C-alpha cells in the first residue's frame, strides 16, 4: 500500500526507453532553445525530417550539431503524399545512418494533414519487409490500427487531432478502442496543445505521446517542455493508480456522522 506503482519502460522493438514522451525538432525559434527544450523534456527519442540540401546556402549546418548527445533520432516521412516517396525517404534516412526505426507518414490531404491510410499500409508493408522498424502516424481508426499491427508495425501512432492544431484528443473513445485491441505500443502522435492534453492521453493508458508544435510553438518552449515531461509522468501515474469512477452526485469526503448539534 502506498507504494509507487511499478512502471516499466516504454519498449519499442525490444529497446527500452524510460521516457514516454517523444518530441519533434521543428519550428523552434532557434537551435539553442531547441537544444535546451529537448533536454528539459526528458525525451530520449526525437524526430527529424529529411529535406533537400539548400544549394544556394553556405550557412553552417548546425541543426545536427544542436541535437543533444545520446538521443535516438527518429526520421519521419513528413511531406510525403505517396507510399513511394515515403519509402524513398526511409531509404535515404538509412543511408544517413539513421534508423532502422522510422516514423512513417503518408499524408492524404494538405488542409488537415490527415493520413492516406491506403498509402500508409502499402508503405508499411514494404518497409517492414526491408527491415525497418515502422512507427506509423495514423488516424484514430481502430480498423486501420489493427491492419497496421498485422502488417508488422512496431507501434501504432493515432492522431489526437490534426498536426499542429493543438486541439487535444478529439475522440478519446476511439483511442480507448485502439488501446483495447492493440498488442503493440500505442503512441498518440499529433494534436496535443497543452500539458493537460498530454496527461489525458496518458490517463487513457497510452504507452507514450509524440508532440512538436505544443512545445516549439509555446511562448516559452523550454518551460513547456518541462510541463510536458511532468504531465506525461503525472498522466501515466494516474493511469497506473486507477482513477475513481465518475458519479452523478456528491459523495462527502468528511464523515457524515458525529456532527455537532
Amino acid at each position: 500500500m502506498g507504494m509507487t506503482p511499478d512502471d516499466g519502460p516504454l519498449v519499442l522493438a525490444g529497446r527500452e526507453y524510460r521516457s514516454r514522451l517523444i518530441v519533434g525538432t521543428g519550428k523552434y525559434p532557434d537551435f539553442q532553445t531547441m537544444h535546451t527544450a529537448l533536454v528539459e523534456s526528458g525525451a530520449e527519442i526525437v524526430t527529424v525530417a529529411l529535406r533537400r540540401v539548400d544549394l544556394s546556402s553556405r550557412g553552417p549546418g548546425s541543426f545536427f550539431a544542436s541535437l543533444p548527445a545520446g538521443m535516438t533520432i527518429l526520421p519521419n516521412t513528413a511531406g510525403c503524399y505517396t507510399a513511394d516517396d515515403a519509402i524513398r525517404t526511409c531509404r535515404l534516412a538509412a543511408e544517413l545512418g539513421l534508423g532502422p526505426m522510422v516514423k512513417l507518414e503518408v499524408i492524404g490531404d494538405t488542409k488537415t494533414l490527415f493520413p492516406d491510410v491506403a498509402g500508409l499500409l502499402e508503405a508499411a508493408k514494404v518497409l517492414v519487409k526491408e527491415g525497418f522498424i515502422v512507427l506509423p502516424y495514423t488516424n484514430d481508426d481502430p480498423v486501420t490500427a489493427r491492419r497496421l499491427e498485422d502488417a508488422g508495425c512496431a507501434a501504432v501512432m493515432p492522431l489526437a487531432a490534426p498536426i499542429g492544431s493543438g486541439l487535444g484528443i478529439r475522440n478519446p473513445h476511439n483511442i480507448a478502442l485502439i488501446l483495447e485491441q492493440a498488442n503493440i505500443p500505442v503512441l498518440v502522435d499529433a494534436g496535443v496543445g497543452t500539458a493537460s492534453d498530454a496527461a489525458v492521453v496518458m490517463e487513457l493508458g497510452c504507452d507514450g505521446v509524440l508532440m512538436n508544435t505544443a512545445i516549439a510553438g509555446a511562448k516559452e518552449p523550454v518551460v513547456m517542455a518541462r510541463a510536458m515531461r511532468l504531465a506525461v509522468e503525472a498522466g501515466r501515474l494516474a493511469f497506473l493508480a486507477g482513477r475513481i469512477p465518475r458519479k452523478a452526485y456528491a459523495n462527502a469526503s468528511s464523515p457524515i456522522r458525529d456532527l455537532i448539534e
Partner: protein
Amino acid sequence: MQIWVNGIEKSLPDALTIRQLLNLLELPPGPVAVEVNRDVVPRVRHDQHILVEGDRIEVVTLVGGG
C-alpha cells in the same frame, strides 16, 4: 552534360562521379544522402558512380521536423 540537382538544372563536365559533384557543390557541413533517378547510391559507391546526361540527383540532409 545537363543534369538536375535538387530540382535545379546544371551544366557540368561529362563523366563526373557523385563524389566530384558533391565537391563542386560546396555543401554546408553535415551528413548528406544521395539519390540518382530515385534510387539511393550508398556513400561507398560515390567514387565509382559516374553521372550521365539527364540524371536527376537528390542531395538530402536532416532538418528539424515533427
